[in-house]
């Protein structure tokens, strides 16, 4: 299928292009940008007038809920949600049921995903067996089956000794390790940021030092072992400051934040709204502002959705009992654009955080528009307002703190390997 994307504003953060350019697709790849190749005739012309044409979004954390949590969501529904959100590549965390600690499970997931012909799925393998934090998984086997990195999701490691071993083992093969810094003991029982709101509402709290102490250990051990470490879902001002300093000292770490943390704070808990119960918790305004500054100055490499669709039954409960997490694949794009608008940052800088930045962390051939490479493309309307409600979300999870609100920015066409896998009505 030869597709000509015509008249759009091309933004390719990786190459620095932000200009009106046409894109020509054939046989699943981009064959040219700007001028049509000789003898090219399109089967289909997509009119991208007034729209932005960018690389398909790359999301470093999206829970697809298979295997094991099919009552919350299925591969089918969440992959629809992904491409409806302009996401063409996504990494899924290992906290499925059973966790992704067996090559057979990983292979099955990849097989199922591929057959659905939607976004590319990059499984992240469990760092320890059963995610129990004790014994290492067969990392090399898991990579053979298709894992791109290893993580504990939100489960703790038994102690620092396991962390050292895991990093050393991964470093042996050069496998990346993605870790969310949280000290289990300091965070135990906590459901909200240790600040003014938790004090007023009487919610058990997670102090910032739960993140920074774990972060300190990870940074020291990353240097000590030489492992490739990616820090997932930073949430605090002190946390990003530590990463900034580590980067300045030449440590090759990368980090991401969840898209909600670029916008919301502890105040958004309001009257105990369970939709604002997230992991890590929404912190103070000062923390949020520091995360935004870290996006702008490059300390934070990527914004991810941390997509976590959750069943009504386990979400509609008193705050502390509610299952944490929010559905977010379809909100990644508009919320990233919202940050750019509020921070008065160039669109290309914002889009880099969801394309070239995460692609680099993933180590995948994604997040860029280059002739000769797969045509994973997002064509979106940056000005289109839409209401976040159950009916407008393709994800089975309707749990979002933005429920009922209007957001700006929606994908119009999403192409994966040159095929239109999503087209807005």
């Amino acid at each position, binding site marked *: 299928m030869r597709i000509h994307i015509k008249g759009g504003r091309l933004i390719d953060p990786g190459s620095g292009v932000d200009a009106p350019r046409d894109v020509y697709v054939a046989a699943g790849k981009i064959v040219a940008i700007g001028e049509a190749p000789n003898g090219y005739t399109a089967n289909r012309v997509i009119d991208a007038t007034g729209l932005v044409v960018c690389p398909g979004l790359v999301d470093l954390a999206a829970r697809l809920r298979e295997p094991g949590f099919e009552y919350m969501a299925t591969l089918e529904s969440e992959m629809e949600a992904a491409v409806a959100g302009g996401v063409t590549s996504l990494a899924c965390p290992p906290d499925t049921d059973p966790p992704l600690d067996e090559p057979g499970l990983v292979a099955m997931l990849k097989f199922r995903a591929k057959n659905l012909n939607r976004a590319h799925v990059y499984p992240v393998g469990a760092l320890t067996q059963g995610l129990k934090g004790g014994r290492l998984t067969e990392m090399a086997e898991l990579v053979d089956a298709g894992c791109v990195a290893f993580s504990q999701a939100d489960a703790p490691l038994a102690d620092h000794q396991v962390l050292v071993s895991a990093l050393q083992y991964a470093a042996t093969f050069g496998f990346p390790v993605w870790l969310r810094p949280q000290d289990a003991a300091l965070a135990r029982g906590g459901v909200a940021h*240790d*600040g*003014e709101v*938790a*004090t*007023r*509402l*009487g*919610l*058990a*709290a997670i*102090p910032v030092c739960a993140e920074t102490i774990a972060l300190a250990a990870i940074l020291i051990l990353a240097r000590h072992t030489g492992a490739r470490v990616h820090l997932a879902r930073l949430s605090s001002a002190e946390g990003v400051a530590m990463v900034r300093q580590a980067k300045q000292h030449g440590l090759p770490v990368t980090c991401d934040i969840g898209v909600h943390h670029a916008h919301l704070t502890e105040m958004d808990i309001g*009257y*105990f709204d*369970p939709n604002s119960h997230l992991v890590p918790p929404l912190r103070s305004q000062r923390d949020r502002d520091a995360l935004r500054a870290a996006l702008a100055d490059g300390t934070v490499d990527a914004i991810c959705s941390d997509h976590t669709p959750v069943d009504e*039954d386990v979400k*509609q*409960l*008193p*705050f*502390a*009992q509610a299952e944490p997490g929010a559905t977010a694949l379809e909100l990644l794009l508009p919320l990233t654009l919202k940050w750019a608008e509020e921070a008065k940052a160039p669109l290309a800088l914002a889009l880099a955080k969801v394309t070239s930045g995460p692609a680099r962390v993933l180590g995948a051939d994604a997040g860029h528009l280059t002739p000769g490479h797969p045509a994973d493309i997002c064509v979106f309307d940056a000005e289109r307002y839409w209401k976040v409600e159950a009916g407008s979300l393709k994800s089975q999870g309707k749990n979002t703190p933005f429920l009922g609100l209007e957001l700006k920015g929606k994908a119009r066409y999403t192409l994966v390997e040159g095929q239109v896998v999503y087209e807005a009505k």
Partner: protein
Amino acid sequence: MWLNPSNPQLNRAGELHHLLTLEGLPAEILRQILDTAKSFVGAKVKKVPLLRGRAVFNLFFEPSTRTRTTFEIAAKRLSADVINLAIATSSQTKGESLLDTVDNLSAMHADMFVVRHSESGAPHFIARHVAPDIHVINAGDGRHAHPTQGLLDMYTIRHYKKEFSGLRVAIVGDILHSRVARSQIHALTTLGCPEIRVIAPKTLLPAHVEQLGVHVHHDMRQGLKDVDVVMMLRLQSERMQGALLPSAEEFYKYYGLTEQKLAAAKPDAIVLHPGPMNRGVEIDSSVADGRQSVILPQVTFGIAIRMAVMSILAGTKAK
């Protein structure tokens, strides 16, 4: 859903529809409750027909004989029918969900739910999901709020001290885990108390507690100096297990209310305690039973306050 999006406790006419927390309630409403309670205190006729034909359901997810009994007495004195439901909760048991429980009970023509729950925010959750004409009263939720206790403490203070405007009040003990303390602080602030002190070791104080508008003291003698009202909090034995305190003995030595420590306060200072008391841990028997203690009157006022709350709530419409 909320009747009034800017305040989940009020209807659109600004009248009290639920009592979930004292935070965010205007002074006028707090005073209305105190004034209405006054007409029940010392009344010769104990029972009035106001709530005849109405059903009050006590939903106690956290056991409590004392509080449940006072609510039951209050409802019966208003001639309401009272149904007591002791609902054991365990996050492990996947029985009927909280929402389903609430829906089923709503269908039984309840007018009012009195809810006690171990999770902060549970009464808010229930209020959000009940039919619009059902009123919810929070009888204590996690660490968040115990509004009727806060109100009866305010009634007690007003009874003995007349005005809030010149008072120094000290709250002593485990503020971190106390829903009573939070409700007291909100009420005192709203009613115009100019100086509220909290006295506790650092491990028993929540983060940013000063932002609630209180002065923090770690030294009890300093903290009690010239206060008019001393509000003691109960210390639960679990706190020793949680590595927050070494022992009840050390706590008593530095934070227990003895006659000696009380002497730092004004000679006519009153001593309150929400009960039940741990004699010899947070308070000495000689103080609890002494001339400055108003702990027993608090109980009488508690019934009147709950009658007042129910009277006001049952009369407001879901508009």
